[in-house]
């Protein structure tokens, strides 16, 4: 009887246990996380991270050949991880959250992906606080350069330092070389802090110094700060410029010319300003598109249905267009995805750009978005692929994974190999890089009006919230002009 009971118990335990269902004992027990079992926020975050890793490694694109290191650097966050990230966020107080830095970074990326910008900023601030409290000054820079704009924390620090210096009231002669730059930096940092009046004051001071010949403009250092000062003035006086943009792109260009003339005796053309130039028609070998669906209320909703399309005429005549350059690649951590070069750069990431573009598309549904990318012979550190195959991967990544509401024009990069045994690949410029040679075509956004004229090209290395604000204002101005006409 005892034996029968024992066997029954064994059978029962087997029936209830996953081990007896053919599953190996250690077969990734966390692949189906039960969040009820997690006691702490940290565990929840860790679970998201594990899913994140797992989702990527199951991706067959690069599984067989890429080095583990490379593979892990370039993984996307899976929808499953995002879903569980949301679950995490519900129980998370972003003002007080405390976790490992890398976990918080993942969390920040998830926040960006689900368009919770306010929370993203809140989390960034929390990360800064954590780093500052622990006196991990290198972490302040590293963390925030990945999550926030790269220059912000240094400017915040710089503002305090420079303010102190300015209070010392050194003789003008001894600090003349630094003076202009100091004011520019204070102004830019004040902009970051939202202290517009301080920024305006700095611009006013700079004008006075230039017009009063206090600043020696023959100095290369001062000329550098001159351009910086112009960028500051451009931002501080941005709203004035919008009135001109409501008239026409030409009027806006004239406004820029006037602003420049207040700054420098040098010709306006030296600035290589592209505003007012006609955009060339875009060329691409492979075309894909992702149309966001329209719901029953006539509102478009984010989504991703990537389809191959025929070559289109872009920029679309008579419409307001956004061109998004992602040829330099992008990266979940802000460093650059599918290219070998972007890996070493810290250009704006697809995360940030896609979030911005999606917000713009929601606000301005008639906006025509075109993403420009090019092939590199490999994708995400995976095995070599031919251009057609790479185009599919690129479109799935940009339009599919990021749900970019856009038409994607992919240029096939011509290249040659270094002679002899070296055999390394050297890419030639693709057509759009030649067409927009005055514009940095690695990563960024430009805006084109209904007549095909450029009225904005990016001014920052990485798209910052300030620049997004400017883009939004410019688009509002241009659309209001179109509505009036």
């Amino acid at each position, binding site marked *: 009887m005892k034996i029968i009971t024992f066997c029954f118990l064994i059978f029962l335990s087997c029936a209830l246990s996953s081990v007896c269902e053919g599953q190996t004992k250690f077969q*990734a027990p966390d692949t189906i996380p039960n969040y009820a079992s997690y006691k702490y926020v940290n565990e929840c975050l*860790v679970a998201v*991270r*594990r899913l994140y890793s*797992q989702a990527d490694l199951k991706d067959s694109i690069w599984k067989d050949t890429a080095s583990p290191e490379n593979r892990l650097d370039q993984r996307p966050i899976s929808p499953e991880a995002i879903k569980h990230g949301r679950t995490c966020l519900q129980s998370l107080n972003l003002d007080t959250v405390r976790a490992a830095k*890398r976990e918080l970074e993942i969390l920040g990326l998830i926040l960006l992906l689900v368009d919770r910008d306010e929370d993203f900023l809140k989390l960034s601030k929390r990360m800064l606080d954590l780093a500052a409290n622990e006196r991990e000054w290198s972490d302040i820079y590293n963390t925030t350069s990945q999550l926030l704009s790269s220059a912000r924390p240094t400017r915040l620090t710089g503002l305090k330092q420079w303010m102190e210096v300015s209070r010392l009231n050194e003789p003008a002669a001894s600090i003349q070389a630094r003076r202009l730059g100091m004011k520019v930096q204070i102004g830019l940092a004040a902009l970051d802090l939202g202290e517009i009046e301080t920024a305006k004051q700095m611009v006013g001071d700079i004008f006075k110094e230039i017009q009063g010949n206090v600043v020696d403009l023959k100095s290369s250092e001062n000329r550098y700060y001159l351009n910086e000062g112009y960028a500051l003035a451009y931002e501080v006086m941005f709203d004035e410029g919008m009135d001109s943009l409501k008239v026409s792109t030409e009027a806006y260009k004239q406004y820029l010319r006037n602003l420049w003339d207040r700054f420098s005796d040098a010709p306006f053309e030296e600035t290589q300003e592209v505003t007012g130039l006609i955009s060339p028609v875009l060329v691409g070998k492979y075309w894909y598109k992702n149309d966001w669906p329209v719901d029953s209320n006539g509102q478009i909703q984010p989504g991703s249905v990537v389809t191959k399309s025929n070559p289109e005429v872009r920029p679309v005549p008579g419409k307001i267009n956004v061109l998004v350059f992602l040829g330099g690649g992008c990266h979940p951590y802000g460093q650059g995805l599918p290219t*070998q070069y972007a890996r070493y750069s810290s250009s704006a990431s697809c995360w940030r750009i896609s979030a911005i573009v999606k917000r713009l598309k929601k606000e301005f549904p008639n906006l025509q978005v075109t993403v420009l990318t090019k092939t590199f012979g490999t994708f995400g550190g995976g095995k070599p692929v031919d251009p057609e195959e790479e185009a599919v991967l690129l479109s799935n990544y940009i339009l599919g994974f990021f749900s970019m509401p856009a038409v994607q024009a992919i240029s096939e990069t011509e290249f040659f190999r270094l002679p002899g045994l070296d055999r390394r690949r050297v890419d030639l410029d693709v057509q759009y890089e030649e067409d927009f040679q005055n514009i940095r075509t690695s990563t960024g956004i430009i805006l084109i009006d209904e007549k095909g004229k450029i009225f904005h090209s990016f001014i920052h290395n990485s798209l910052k919230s300030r620049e997004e604000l400017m883009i939004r204002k410019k688009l509002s101005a241009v659309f209001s002009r179109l509505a009036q006409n």
Partner: protein
Amino acid sequence: MIEWDNDNRILSESSAQKVLDEALSYAGKRGTVKIVISSWWGGGQRWARNAPTMTADQREVTFKVERGIGSSRGQAETNQIDSVSIKGAMEVAERYALSRSENNPLDKETDIAHWDFEGSNVWSDVTYNRLVTENAKSVNDITHKSIEDNLVSAGYIGNTASTALVYNCDDWGRNTTKWGRVTSGSCSVTVRHPKGVGSGWAGQSSYDIARWDVEKVADLAYEKCKLSLNPVRLEPGRYTTILEPQAVATLMSFLVGALNRVPPESGRASNPIYQIFDSGLRRHISKIGVKLVDSRLNVYHDPQDPLVGTHRSSLIRKVNMITQGIFTEGYNSIPHEINELNSNNPAIVRRSYRVDGGETSVDEMIKSTRRGLIVAKLDQAMPVDDASILLTGVTRDGLWLIENGTVTKSIRNFRWIESPLFVFNNIEQIGFTEPVFNQTWFRGPLTINFHDSLKNVVVPTMKVRDFQFSSMIDAI
């Protein structure tokens, strides 16, 4: 009951598997687990001043476990493989994993991916079956002979066998179990005159000790000692020099170690094979395709070559590092290979290599030398300048003067300062190849990076011009 291999020396595969099964039965169902069960046997004899100083018949078994829960890791290790110890180790590892803070990011694939030990062809029954008693007999013969000759000998004879079973269950649901075993043997004999006026050395290493003979190694050391007695002083300077294989290997290993494409092509200008930055191409150019050394030299690593090859991993292929003096292939990482070359066949160069030999005997080299030196060994080599691979060190255990085609006298040791790039461009004659003694020959339990510890080198004797000896040293 664990079944050992004969004489309780190493674990058999089935025994290790039993230990593994038992360990897994103690593991919780959460998290990852990695277990390495390794066993090692080493039989060695060490002697000095004609008397045995150590007789070793060592055996060791190690059970290592690493548990991962969340993003933290816990490790435990024991050298007992009974049920209580294994269970204790599993529990300790899990407890550590649970108690540690979550600051170990779970972003690294375990090193199981680099495991290339499986299928290793470096197992020799002869090596494994050579017992300590046989080694002891050899030592006895050598010491008796040195006593008879009124010389002092010291050295080491040893052979080892190791096994490892590696189990890994990673975060992505993959369970892998790998098994491998290797043998190794080495012999090093130093014979000196009791008054310190002469010294001779010889050594050999191989996974298969049937490839060499202890007595012959010892005889060579005796001969060199006798020939090096009462060395005379000679002015330092540049001399035509016959480098014995051991000396060639010392220089060549620095050159082979530098043949890595990634640093120079990433812009490290201090790298010895960095050439130039091409501003037109916006590329850093390495010296690949450039003639680095004498056109008679071919340096390559062939995994199928039993004297240098150590594995059959599919990633590893024959790599021709230097062909006819031209730098043809260097180590290339997988990302560099894929991104820069769009190819998926990287050259993974190990530190084991072979250099093609010539057909000139040492006697012929001596006969054709009007005035020069023979160097048995270049010791204590260390880099002076990375960019030019400039090295310095001292000669040891045999340095002789050649005059008019005859070895005339033994010379006091020199400090040398030289670059392999210079030496191997000044080759006059190349002799027969020989496997050389490897001081870093693997001992102890296997690790995952087993092959990184191997330096199987087969090189020829060479006669070179203008080898620079910078100063004389007193040590013999």
